[in-house]
């Protein structure tokens, strides 16, 4: 538990960037087998998602390639399986393996984009709110309350409707990912804002901030260079969990009929589709994407845990 502590004076001497590539971090990384495995798994998932068009055996998004006559072929090893469909096919005859690879792309895109959107917006508003305080704080927090009232589901429904209303004949296949990213991101930012605000309010009364103020460092710089790094702990926890949550929320929206188009399924959409086939014995349609999602989320979170601990100066 104490083996990673370094002498405080060492840390103080080095810049922040230098600290990140500090060999201590590398050591702590290598020392933790779980983290290494998590990193490898995450990397494999990301790379295979990125390379899906080149490594997937089929293109599940190309309707001309899929045949409904191949529907619900079980994975290899079971009766009536087909070697060209390693993990079987879904109800439309899409290859599950290819579907998972392509679906992962969409899920990761929705996940990362919406978390990034929510985090940037939330951290900024939270910092300002907590640091400036007073009327600004009150207004931002009231906006947050208004925001919280609308669950992601409703936002997605509304934004979808508004997008159709404003942009006219919207090509859903192209825009669905952006609409979802925006909807999910919008419903997440409050968490960051409130968390950062809470921590900022504590931090701003600490000596180092007072000192910085006294020597005339502009508020903006104090906020982002000095306060921000110290309130990032909970933010990273939320962000790693939210990545999973965003992917799941997308699946849930799909469950409610407003997710990505079924002709271009995400991992979550595949689970939603498979959900209908659990009782009928075609378990692979839900379980394989479910496993893929669970592994991805697990790996990202373990990595996040490590990063959080490793980057936190107080823990080193």
């Amino acid at each position, binding site marked *: 538990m104490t083996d990673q502590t370094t002498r405080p004076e060492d840390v103080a001497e080095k810049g922040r960037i230098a600290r990140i590539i500090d060999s201590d971090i590398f050591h702590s990384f290598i020392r933790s087998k779980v983290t290494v495995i998590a990193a490898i798994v995450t990397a494999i998932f990301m790379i295979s998602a990125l390379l899906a068009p080149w490594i997937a055996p089929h293109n599940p998004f190309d309707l001309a390639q899929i045949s409904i006559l191949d529907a619900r072929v079980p994975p290899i090893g079971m009766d009536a399986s087909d070697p060209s469909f390693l993990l079987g096919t879904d109800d439309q005859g899409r290859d599950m393996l290819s579907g998972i690879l392509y679906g992962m792309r969409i899920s990761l895109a929705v996940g990362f984009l919406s978390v990034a959107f929510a985090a940037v917006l939330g951290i900024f508003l939270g910092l300002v709110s907590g640091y400036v305080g007073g009327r600004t704080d009150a207004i931002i927090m009231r906006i947050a309350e208004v925001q*919280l009232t609308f*669950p992601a589901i409703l936002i997605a429904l509304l934004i979808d409707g508004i997008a159709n209303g404003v942009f006219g004949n919207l090509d859903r296949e192209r825009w669905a990912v952006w609409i979802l990213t925006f909807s999910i991101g919008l419903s997440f930012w409050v968490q960051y804002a409130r968390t950062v605000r809470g921590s900022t309010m504590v931090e701003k009364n600490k000596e180092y901030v007072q000192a910085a103020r006294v020597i005339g460092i502009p508020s903006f710089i104090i906020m982002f260079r000095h306060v921000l790094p110290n309130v990032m*702990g909970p933010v990273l926890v939320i962000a790693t969990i939210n990545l999973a949550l965003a992917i799941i929320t997308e699946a849930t929206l799909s*469950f409610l009929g407003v997710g990505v188009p079924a002709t271009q399924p995400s991992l979550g959409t595949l689970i939603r589709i498979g959900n209908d086939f659990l009782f009928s014995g075609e378990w692979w349609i839900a379980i394989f994407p479910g496993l893929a999602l669970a592994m991805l989320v*697990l790996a990202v979170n373990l990595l996040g845990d490590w990063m959080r*601990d490793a980057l936190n100066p107080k823990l080193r």
Partner: protein
Amino acid sequence: MFGFISRRLVMAVVVMFVVALISFTLFRFVGDPINQMVGIETTPEQREALRERLGLNDPIIVQFARFIMGALQFDFGNSYQFKQPVAELIGKRLPATLELSFVSALFALFVGVPMGVYTGLNRHSAISKLFLSVSLIGVSLPTFFIGILLIFVFSVHLQWLPSFGRGDVVALGGWWTTGFLTVSGLKALILPAITLGLFQMTLIMRLIRAEMLEVMRTDYIKFARARGLPSRSINFIHALKNTMVPVITITGLQLGSIIAFAIITETVFQWPGMGLLFLQAVQNVDIPIMAAYLMLTAFIFVTINLAVDILYVVIDPRLRTERSGL
């Protein structure tokens, strides 16, 4: 403190007003309520007549003003689908949702906090890693999928627990129904409460762990240790107490998200609560129900946030001076 609270109350009213305004501007994008209120063979003229009678052709501002006038008297109109007063419908569904949320929050806290403390104190133990990994299952699968899996195992396969509904409920005082007093009511709570609480449990556990790790490194804990205080009192009294600011924030927020997630859980388990009512309202474009539900949610969030802000002040004295200025 009094000034702070009264000022917040005024703001709460403003927040709810804004929520109502936004909802009303956006409702027309959710779909056409008329289609859901008539059979498919109803002629366009009849549909138009109904639209006119409902005042849906009036300008949004007029509709909004009508809604606000009603809402001030707690009259949210009649549901398009059920043809009953919305306030009454929601009132009847409220106990189901509150009981479910309460039980799942208890589950999340009573499992999440000890696991968080344990994993925070024993950072490198194998059990901690197991806890951390297993708990992630709760956040890595969609709620509806977890719910169906639980139903599949415990209702269909083992036949231990019911797959839907609240079981037998007991009416208390005419305005509350409880499932706590009957065996079937308690059994019916188990699966939905776990489904709903799993996510919160994971989040609380991880947050407590994260905060514990930090707090244990701070000077005052080191001093406490140096002074030879028993480690249990350090861990639970001094350390845990100091992890509470972010935890309270998040838990407060999660109370809200429990309500949001309840929509899915209630749908999967056919739990007769507000979430189910709301989802059906969205599906059927039942505007009065949607509006009243959103107002109620806004009220709940405003109240929770107020409570959280007051708790901050109580728990962390450093914030006191800051607050009084507001």
